[in-house]
């Protein structure tokens, strides 16, 4: 390129000086010049077709098409993006004899420019396709949102009935059954703690009990063991023990019912936020308290996890607590699920809040197995999930919901992950630009 520049473009009197915003030429003009962009930046575009354009940087030739082809009409308009210095040569400078030498000298440059333009066009096409895909995705989410809203609404009614009904049943059971203090203790134990004895543990305790009470049936001893008060029950008279177990089981079943209701409510809430919301946001929203609320909603999944809350001094934001709460519940539930059952390291969930610079920053870290490299770029998209268990949402929508909500707050979200664990960072600006 330098050789060509020296050979053809060093005439001091054939230079165009452009200021930013000036046109070199417009589309459809007669052009008999070949320009070399010595310094500056130019943009070539078709005023009728917004999609087509290219950028020229220093060292690029401009006007190659019109100079070397039969058609000397410009295909694009050329405008200076920065102040530019553009030496040029004209067709008129050359005679017939010079033609061969000229062609030979510029051939590589012409080919290079053509390839470059082709590549730029290809990239533009790819960008265009991606935009189309994103739009389709948005449409899909929108209809998914509508569907979810409908489903959520229907389910809500049913869940309300179940929830109120089971609370009522619990009340009535405690009031109506004439229980002595031991029996009341048994029902309450089931009701408040549920089935906390694992199947393996119950089997082991039952085996031990069998040694002390060989005449009792295996099945009975297993039942007693499941309450966590096996020895106590085994030392009661048969009828007392049987009734006590039945009452414990009743309490535990009601506990299970409440758990199922909580889970359903979580699912419905998450689905609701997929739809466009009519959420009322206000000033004075405390992110720390929405985090505490999330922790209480997840009391069950978080049972086997060590929780470290480091909630700093943060200002309130303009927002809706329930809406923000969904961000935390979805991320924390993911974390709890990721660490579920891991034995080789501790299950630690850390939530830290601070306000470094005009926004509230929430960092949620777990000590799970991390997110595989292959999917980490996709995790905010719908239907991407590492979860196969039926215990979780499993639709792969949790993080999509989170992302949607964060965007509504004009906030930001990022994730770091390694086999040691994963950290999600969410930032929410203080301000009211909603």
């Amino acid at each position, binding site marked *: 390129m330098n050789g060509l520049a020296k050979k053809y473009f060093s005439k001091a009197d054939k230079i165009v000086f452009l200021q930013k915003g000036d046109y070199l030429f417009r589309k459809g003009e007669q052009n008999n010049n070949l320009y070399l962009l010595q310094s500056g930046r130019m943009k070539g575009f078709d005023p009728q077709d917004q999609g087509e354009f290219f950028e020229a940087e220093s060292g690029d030739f401009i006007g190659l098409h019109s100079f070397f082809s039969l058609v000397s009409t410009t295909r694009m308009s050329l405008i200076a993006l920065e102040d530019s210095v553009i030496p040029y040569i004209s067709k008129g400078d050359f005679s017939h004899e010079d033609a061969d030498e000229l062609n030979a000298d510029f051939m590589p440059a012409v080919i290079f420019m053509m390839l470059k333009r082709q590549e730029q066009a290809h990239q533009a096409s790819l960008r265009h396709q991606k935009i189309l895909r994103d739009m389709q995705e948005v449409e899909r989410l929108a209809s998914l949102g509508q569907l979810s809203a409908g489903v959520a609404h229907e389910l809500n009614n049913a869940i309300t009935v179940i929830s109120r009904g089971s609370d009522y049943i619990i009340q009535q059971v405690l009031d109506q059954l004439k229980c002595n203090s031991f029996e009341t203790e048994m029902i309450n134990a089931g009701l408040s703690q549920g089935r906390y004895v694992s*199947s393996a543990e119950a089997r082991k305790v039952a085996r031990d009990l069998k040694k002390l009470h060989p005449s009792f049936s295996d099945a009975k001893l297993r039942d007693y063991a499941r309450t966590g008060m096996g020895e106590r029950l085994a030392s009661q008279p048969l009828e007392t023990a049987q009734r006590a177990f039945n009452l414990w089981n009743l309490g535990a079943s009601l506990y299970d019912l409440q758990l199922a209701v909580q889970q359903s409510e979580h699912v419905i809430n998450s689905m609701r936020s997929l739809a466009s919301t009519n959420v009322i946001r206000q000033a004075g929203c405390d992110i720390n308290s929405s985090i505490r609320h999330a922790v209480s909603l997840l009391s069950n999944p978080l049972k086997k996890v060590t929780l470290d809350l480091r909630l700093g001094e943060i200002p309130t934001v303009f927002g809706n607590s329930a809406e923000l709460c969904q961000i935390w519940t979805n991320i924390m539930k993911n974390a709890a699920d990721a660490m579920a*059952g891991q034995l080789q390291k501790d299950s630690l969930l850390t939530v830290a809040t601070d306000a470094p610079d005009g926004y509230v920053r929430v960092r949620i870290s777990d000590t799970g197995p991390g997110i595989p490299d292959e999917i980490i770029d996709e995790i905010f998209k719908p239907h991407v999930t590492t979860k196969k268990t*039926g*215990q979780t949402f499993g639709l792969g929508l949790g993080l999509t919901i989170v992302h949607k909500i964060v965007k509504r707050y004009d906030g930001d979200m990022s994730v770091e992950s390694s086999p040691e664990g994963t950290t999600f960072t969410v930032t929410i600006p203080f301000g009211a630009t909603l």
Partner: protein
Amino acid sequence: MKKAHIILIDDQIDVLSALLQDLKPFRERFILDDCQSADEAYELMEELEVSGEQIALIISDHIMANKNGIELYADLAHDQRFEDVRKILITGQASHEDTIDAINNASIDYYISKPWSIEELHKVVRKMITHWIFDHGLNHKDYEGMIDTDVLLKRSKAAGDR
């Protein structure tokens, strides 16, 4: 008469309890063992095998935290010790591929989808028990109330034809 075992597997203890409760009528002739994972169940099965206990039937959930039900059943299909144990898979969410895999590689005997009805569950369990009884040349009269008459007729006829 020594009771054979029915093993129940689900990683969610509330669902496991529901299964236990629903299968209580079978406690008369079988020992119900609840397990919260495929690994726990396999370990238990090995213990039982060593002590000469019989395992008639396994009812397992499909989707579980670590090894899932189909994977467990595939392992069992290749384990000579447990070839004759009847296998039921319970699933709340299964794709075509899962079904094909279950049938081809895991030779499950029956599929039940969640939520199950107690009648359906009992019917399937009775079928499986009846098959197991004939597989082991046991007397079906010892298992009154737990026999499926269709299976009884089919298997009796087959036995008689030989």
